[in-house]
């Protein structure tokens, strides 16, 4: 069923040499590669039935509309939404979160209120709340990350009170890999009347997601990290909440009626989709969801737990390495941040690139977390369905070369 060699046939891009060495792609945390079926689904649209959606009374437009709305239903089912009307297409997780900060936040958060987020949030789930706080006089409070990289739930219990309007928390850290207990967080937040936004950018591509089981109010994620194209993201929101929210962007498609005096909004989800949407990208995302469904998200998660365990084993033997985040592979995802002696992560990435290995180096859009760790940057290897143990072996070899070169 889940066979990496078979899967890799769907990703011919991986079968290349870089700097004369076979490519090892370990940057899926930043963005995943795309299976042929996704690229083909988009090509097919452009080559055989492309047209603008929704309003066209002719075959191409009707077919494109059906494909676009069909993709929405696939995504809705993938996260187990109650209704496809709860799925809004955006550009990326970042826009999804900003949509909530503008359309919900500006109308529901006041001076004195608290927005609770964790110290390990990606800038996408931090800066919008800092901005909202600056504009409204609310404050952002940070749930600490403990020494092992876990969300400090005892601290959360102390911090959650009825001044909290929103708890915005990542489901999986893109640096530490930590999986957070979003179900528990949601229950406790709801108990004090706060809403819960989950940043699923790292989690949704890698493990089963059930918005009804978690009972979260908003879930944001990006297509490009889950085998889908760039230019498409998702905001899930509970219907009752979305219904009450004013629109965010305004213009065509999101209105029911416009006069010179004002406008009336369209039904959900279109109220939040102004202008020509990312039609073909949504169709591509639909094909990505199909692909993941064929593999099975439980299998995807299992594969990554195995790879992560192997990575901890092998990387742990490299002298001078320091790995961040929980060591228990079942409590984390396959994004593994590390440093090697005093070699700057940028230098490490360059050395690895010259060995054909693609990793990421920097602050991974989590500067405050790095500040807390006392670092400016880390190196990060991240895994997905097409990675194999031998990719990790190649990484380890290259790290050994780096140690030699920098004499550590």
């Amino acid at each position: 069923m889940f066979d990496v060699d078979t899967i890799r046939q769907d990703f011919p891009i991986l079968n290349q040499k870089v700097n004369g060495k076979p490519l090892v792609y370990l940057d899926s945390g930043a963005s995943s590669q795309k299976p042929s079926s996704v690229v083909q689904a988009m090509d097919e649209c452009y080559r055989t039935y492309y047209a603008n959606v929704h309003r066209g009374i002719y075959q191409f437009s009707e077919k494109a509309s059906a494909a676009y709305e069909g993709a929405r239903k696939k995504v809705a089912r993938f996260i187990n939404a109650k209704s496809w009307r709860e799925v809004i297409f955006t550009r990326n997780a970042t826009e999804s979160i900003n949509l909530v900060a503008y359309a919900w936040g500006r109308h529901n958060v006041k001076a004195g209120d608290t927005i609770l987020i964790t110290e390990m949030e990606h800038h996408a789930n931090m800066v919008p709340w800092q901005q909202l706080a600056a504009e409204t006089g609310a404050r952002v409070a940070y749930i600490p990350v403990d020494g092992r990289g876990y969300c400090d739930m005892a601290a959360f219990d102390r911090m959650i009170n009825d001044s909290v309007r929103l708890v915005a928390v990542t489901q999986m850290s893109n640096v530490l890999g930590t999986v957070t207990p979003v179900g528990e967080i949601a229950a406790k937040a709801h108990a004090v009347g706060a809403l819960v936004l989950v940043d699923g950018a790292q989690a949704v591509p890698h493990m089963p997601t059930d918005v009804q089981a978690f009972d979260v109010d908003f879930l944001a994620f990006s297509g490009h990290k889950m085998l889908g194209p760039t230019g498409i993201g998702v905001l899930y929101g509970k219907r009752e909440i979305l219904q009450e929210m004013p629109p965010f962007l305004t213009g065509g498609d999101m209105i029911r009626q416009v006069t010179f005096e004002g406008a009336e909004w369209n039904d959900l989800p279109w109220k939040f989709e102004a202008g020509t949407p990312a039609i073909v990208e949504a169709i591509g995302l639909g094909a990505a969801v199909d692909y993941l469904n064929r593999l099975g998200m439980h299998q995807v998660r299992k594969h990554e737990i195995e790879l992560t365990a192997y990575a901890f084993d092998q990387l742990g033997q490299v002298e001078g390495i320091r790995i961040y985040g929980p060591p228990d592979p079942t409590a984390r995802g396959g994004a593994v941040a590390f440093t090697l002696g005093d070699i700057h992560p940028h230098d490490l990435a360059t050395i690895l690139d010259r060995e054909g290995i693609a990793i990421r180096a920097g602050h991974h859009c989590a500067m405050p977390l790095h500040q807390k760790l006392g670092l400016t940057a880390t190196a990060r290897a991240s895994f997905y369905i097409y990675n194999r143990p031998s990719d990790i072996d190649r990484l380890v070899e290259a790290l050994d070369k780096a140690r030699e070169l920098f004499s550590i």
Partner: protein
Amino acid sequence: MDDFYRENILDHYRNPRNKGRLENPTHTHEELNPLCGDVIRIDLHVNDEGVIDQVRFDGKGCAISQASASMLTEMIQGKTLDEAKQLSKEDILEALGIEIGPVRLKCALLSLKVLKAGIYGLPNWTGEDEDDW
């Protein structure tokens, strides 16, 4: 030409049944097709026995929305409110007797939406999309 605009449809479009307004409706509601701005209004009169004894539709629109509204009024006239509530998308499509694409479906079902959304008090009934998954 093909048979999309059947005799039947053009006849109801050119000679709409029950067009106009009621003086003393017991129920009245109108809805807009946001696609094109077409509006349909339906007035009902339900008598003491719970039977729809008078019905009128009003509005401007395309042949499909006008013909289906005209047909709809014929279908509910003389029914009880409860019987009329059973009316489904399929009943309308059967009356029209054509295969219809998803966009024009909104035209075909606009009058049913007026009934469901307004008169039966189902404000979120959107015509066709909801159960379709």
